[in-house]
């Protein structure tokens, strides 16, 4: 096998025509993909974007002639390098996968076998298909690790999946896909689960290696800014149909469809910051640790003014969620205290009165797990009304209706179970549950990070409106800088369990930055196809300068 692929750049590699895919649910088949075309040339990257349920992943898998369990490709043609995959037998298709077409999954952690070394898994397909002898494949894998800028490329392959970080694992999976030098790689949301600072590195190494070997790729994501860095062409999907299809620069500068514009709508919200000196919550020099492990919070102090939004930002492991747990009383701090309305809050949950619990409510990241799947919306929102306000019967139901309307849903939702709602609706119900308690402070823990852009915008606008109407105070925990810009008044930057800085939004987001804030801010992908190239160049120059 040569380093270069056999075909020339610009030859058509994959041609999918009129693809229709059915999914099975409720005892019948529904069309998930309704006649989509894809044309991909060698060396090109196609970005597939759309919200969840748009059929991006299903379409990506169909490029390998594969349909997930419960799905079937009903019509259309998939011509890969002159072969019609629809007419190939399962064995023939299997022979192509992993050798000529490779797949990089979203969750690297869930896709590796925890019982085998990384390098064994990297070369497995290549060796078993007899493309390369094992020793050669291993040597090549180490070279790929180096190309992907993994630390200790010669020995990292001997580790097991749990011994490396998520970003590293995602790069190892890219090496695995590259091992057989496929003609086509399908990236299915490869960086969605990563922190922004890690995402930049992974994106850069993926892009480099795809260019190096002139591989064609389909890059699936819901983040337009990410796809702008990777793709030559972008296809926007919604409900299984193509909304818009254009060259990347053209798509970004002049999108034709309303829906395409709405995909980056979060970035269009802009809250005017307000200053306030009436401090509702004061976290005063707290330390905290989980039993039997090292300290996770070091001398954290945060001040939250009434009626404003304080965003706590940082990457995973920075202690931002732990700080929230300390405020709610789930994790009593080992030293320091928390003042609410000027009075010290008892450190433990048990020590707090119902009244104190009522005033601080929490909204979770995963609305799925934050609501009991066996309770109806009526039970979920009604419980705090009964519990805190003592409302029953008619009075409770009337208030329930008001709350449901407040979150822009209607009566028809009241007797549904969470499983019957979409992600955005679930999160709205969680907001209503928090509101039902009539709180003063709401802690929002990554409440929008599991949602699509367009739904995020709806949720953020709702939160802002509720804040104005009820003078609510928010602590907004997030790693997404676009969200922070959209809704915060003040920003707290956390890193490794310490507060790096706290201040008004305008102060924090304008230079000069402390080193970590700079890294965090510069890592947020921008809607500019040259952003990644520019950033890498700037960072390389910065590194040279410090040397």
């Amino acid at each position, binding site marked *: 096998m040569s380093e270069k692929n056999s075909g020339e750049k610009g030859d058509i590699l994959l041609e999918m025509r009129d693809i229709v895919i059915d*999914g099975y*649910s*409720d005892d019948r088949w*529904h069309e*998930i993909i*309704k006649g989509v075309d894809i044309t991909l040339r060698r060396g090109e990257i196609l970005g597939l974007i759309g919200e*969840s*349920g748009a059929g991006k992943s299903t379409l990506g898998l169909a490029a390998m002639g594969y349909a997930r*369990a419960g799905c079937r490709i009903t019509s259309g043609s998939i011509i890969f390098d002159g072969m019609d995959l629809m007419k190939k037998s399962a064995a023939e298709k299997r022979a192509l996968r992993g050798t000529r077409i490779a797949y990089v999954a979203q969750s690297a952690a869930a896709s590796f076998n925890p019982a085998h070394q990384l390098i064994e898994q990297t070369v497995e397909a290549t060796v078993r298909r007899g493309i390369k002898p094992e020793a050669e494949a291993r040597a090549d894998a180490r070279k790929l690790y180096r190309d992907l800028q993994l630390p200790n490329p010669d020995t990292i392959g001997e580790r097991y999946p749990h011994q490396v970080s998520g970003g590293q694992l995602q790069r190892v999976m890219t090496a695995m896909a590259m091992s057989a030098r496929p003609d086509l790689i399908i990236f299915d949301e490869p960086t969605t689960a990563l922190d922004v600072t890690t995402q930049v590195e992974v994106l850069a190494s993926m892009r480099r290696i795809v260019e190096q070997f002139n591989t064609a790729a389909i890059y699936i994501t819901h983040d337009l800014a990410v796809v702008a860095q990777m793709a030559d062409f972008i296809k926007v999907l*919604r*409900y*299984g*149909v193509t*909304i818009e299809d254009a060259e990347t620069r053209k798509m970004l500068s002049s999108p034709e*469809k*309303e*829906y395409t514009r*709405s995909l980056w709508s979060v970035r269009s919200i802009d809250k005017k910051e307000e200053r306030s000196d009436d401090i509702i919550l004061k976290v005063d020099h707290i330390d905290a640790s989980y039993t039997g492990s090292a300290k996770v919070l070091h001398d954290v102090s945060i001040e939250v003014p009434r009626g404003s939004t304080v965003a706590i930002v940082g990457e995973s492991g920075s202690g931002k969620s732990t700080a929230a747990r300390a405020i*709610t*009383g*789930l994790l009593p701090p080992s030293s320091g205290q928390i003042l609410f309305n000027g009075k010290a809050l008892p450190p433990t*949950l048990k020590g*707090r009165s*119902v009244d104190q*619990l009522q005033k601080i*409510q*929490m909204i*979770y990241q*995963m609305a799925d*797990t*934050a*609501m*009991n*799947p*066996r*309770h109806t919306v009526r039970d979920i929102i009604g*419980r*705090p009304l009964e*519990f*805190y306000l003592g409302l029953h019967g008619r009075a409770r139901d009337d208030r329930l209706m008001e709350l449901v309307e407040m*979150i*822009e*849903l209607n009566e*028809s*939702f009241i007797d*549904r179970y969470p*499983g*019957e*709602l*979409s992600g*955005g*609706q679930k999160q*709205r119900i969680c907001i209503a*549950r928090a509101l039902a*308690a009539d709180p003063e402070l709401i802690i929002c823990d990554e409440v929008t990070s599991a949602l699509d852009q*367009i*739904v995020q*915008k*709806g949720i953020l606008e*709702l939160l802002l409106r509720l804040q104005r109407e009820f003078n609510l105070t928010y602590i907004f925990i997030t790693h997404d800088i676009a969200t922070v810009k959209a809704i915060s008044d003040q920003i707290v930057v956390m890193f490794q369990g310490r507060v790096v800085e706290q201040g008004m939004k305008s102060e924090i987001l304008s230079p000069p930055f402390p080193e970590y804030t700079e890294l965090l801010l510069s890592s947020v992908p921008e809607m500019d196809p040259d952003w990644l190239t520019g950033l890498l160049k700037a960072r390389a120059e910065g590194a040279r300068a410090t040397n």
Partner: protein
Amino acid sequence: MNDKDDIIPSEGAELADQGYSAAAEVGVIKARRTFAQNVWRGLKSAPPTALFGLTVISIYVIFAVFAPLLAPYGEAEIFPMSYAPWSEEFRFGTDQLGRDVMSRLIYGARNTVGIAFVTTLFAFIIGGGLGITAAINNNGWLDNLLSRSVDVLMAIPSLIFALILLSMFGANTLNLIIIIAVLDSTRVFRIARAVSLNVVVMDYVEAARLRGEKMFWILYREILPNIMPPLVAEFGLRFCFVFLTIAALSFLGVGIQPPTADWGSMVRETAGLIQFAEYDFTAAMTPMLPAAAIALLTVAVNFVVDWFLHKSSGLKD
């Protein structure tokens, strides 16, 4: 991941390029099935073994409920002829005291099955309650105390332990129910604790604790509904074991006491007839009838439990 499918409205193409509205997000919502529709759907897809099991169980239940109407004679009605052969008058003959075997078989359904059912229910209330409590208190002192006590109880062979306790406290129905229920609740405790541990870590349980809910609410409203499927399946299995244990104890003479009709003791009382098989085959079958009743019910319940476990495990085939 199934909920992805729910988001796709059937006429998605027309909606594709419209603005955003929270209420319309799900699009067309399917009407929820009623309980009866769900049961009917389940039955339609049930394998033949499960249908067989359900039929058998229903017949047992009918006999148990309507025993006085269905039995030709009273439960303890004594006729002058003991060990009467099978005839028009006494379908399955009479036993050593001259009681009609068929009537006692029918009343036996009520007694044996009823007592086993009540015992299993108690075992689940005790074991399930403590198991979930232990899971909420995960690794705290209460969890450790309960778990270790259960280990101790489980280390003793249960049939022998039951025999000892019954001879200590006296063999009456109440003691029987309590002793078997306590011994069997150890198994229920284990499974309830194990399945609850997966639920206790969910955010909604944390949300309930943050709200300030009491332990009982969390146990009963937040956790219990989410662990019902495995518990119901386990209920079927445990019921079989309890049922067999009671039959075994009755056979040994310390279970359900005469004159209450019970299948285990009926086997014992008429067991001697087996040796006359070469002279009167039907008479020799008399002890086999209650034994067969026990076996058939056990098999039927197991068929249903297998089907239920398969359904709740979410495996497709």
